[in-house]
């Protein structure tokens, strides 16, 4: 999955383990879950059985891709999932 790590901004986020490493909202920092859905501005994470929607623009995410961890600023992910492949 080397392609996926390098092109994380274009690739599928759904199904990846995700941790919020920084956010304007301190209650979000440190949350860890799996991405289950995505819209233009939000990621839906499933955290300990509960679904939580997080705005992309306000946070920095760390995704686990294969055995690598990739940190991404949420701002670069703002786009509809089908549009992200293009940008």
């Amino acid at each position: 999955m080397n392609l996926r790590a390098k092109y994380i901004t274009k690739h599928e986020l759904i199904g990846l383990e995700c941790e919020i490493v920084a956010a304007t909202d301190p209650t979000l920092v440190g949350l860890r879950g799996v991405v289950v859905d995505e819209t233009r501005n939000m990621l839906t994470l499933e955290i300990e059985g509960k679904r939580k929607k997080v705005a992309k623009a306000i946070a920095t995410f760390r995704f686990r891709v294969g055995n690598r961890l990739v940190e991404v600023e949420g701002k670069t992910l703002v786009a509809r999932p089908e549009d992200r492949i293009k940008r």
Partner: protein
Amino acid sequence: MRKRNLKLERRIARERIEILMQLAREVFRNDPALAKRYVELARKIAMRYNVRFPRKWKRFFCKACGSFLVPGVNMRVRCTKQRVVITCLECGHVKRIPYIREKKAMKNEAKLKGEEKV
């Protein structure tokens, strides 16, 4: 406008469709609505980047209602002499698939056998 790398986009599109359909199958037991959402996303991506669905996933969603189909649960599969009939139990849409590849394979086999005898 930056030059778009079509090859890369298509490759990623194909991978994402595969990933999404695989996920759809996994989540279906717990959340069929989510599986339907993944099918919807996969189809959008396929349409946007003009990429065909992988053959192994082609028959597992309903083109009419977009549900992810699982034989026995929301899908009825019947084999007649001429074709395979797939019925979506969610919306009632029926898909009929004639045996094209299988017939070709049979033809080729017969041809090979014929040549051997001669």
